[in-house]
């Protein structure tokens, strides 16, 4: 069956540009998570949705980061006015529900800001 997909897989942006990263979760999964993984480190939590509701955005590093999931399925992570420190792999994960269920990860989008 289809897993979590993310697009684009690679994105190069010039400093100051806006980017949008897309996540297609597994069909029927209620919960969706975004993580940021810097090179050589473990993933770090950014934000979490249950259906269309954004229940936790405590990990978003600044107000330049914005995430949405308007219909409770596909999610978009938007980064405005990108900076070099935003360069990382952005991982999306989904699970059947939030509590104690396996999170299935997508392959990630590698963002490089020049």
């Amino acid at each position, binding site marked *: 069956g289809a897993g979590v997909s993310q697009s684009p897989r690679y994105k190069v942006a010039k400093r100051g540009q806006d980017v949008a990263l897309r996540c297609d979760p597994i069909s029927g999964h209620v919960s969706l998570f975004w993580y940021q993984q810097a090179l*050589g480190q473990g993933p770090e939590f950014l934000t979490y949705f249950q259906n269309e509701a954004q229940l936790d955005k405590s990990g978003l590093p600044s107000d330049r980061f914005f995430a949405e999931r308007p219909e409770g399925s596909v999610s978009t992570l938007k980064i405005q006015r990108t900076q070099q420190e935003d360069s990382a792999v952005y991982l999306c994960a989904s699970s059947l529900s939030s509590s104690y269920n396996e999170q299935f*990860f997508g392959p990630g989008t590698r963002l490089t800001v020049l």
Partner: protein
Amino acid sequence: GESVGLHLPTLSVQEGDNSIINCAYSNSASDYFIWYKQESGKGPQFIIDIRSNMDKRQGQRVTVLLNKTVKHLSLQIAATQPGDSAVYFCAENMNGNKLVFGAGTILRVKS
């Protein structure tokens, strides 16, 4: 593919030997723990999980041990194979939703 873990501790084992990867977690209130495997260019892949009311859980060729007293988690892989080479992360599940990942360990299997 690009390496996931350039500055992580590395465990090198001979093919067929057993591997033990250790992890210290931070929050004594965490009650759910997961081990993930991450290969270069891919997202983390679930290996095994354990709830805090258990101290050991076994899967196929893998065993997770949990010591809540010292906040320590370990992953044992039996008869390690070349396909096991990857970066391994432990993660705490906070409040039933977000995951907090540890630093990671690179496992290299020598044939």
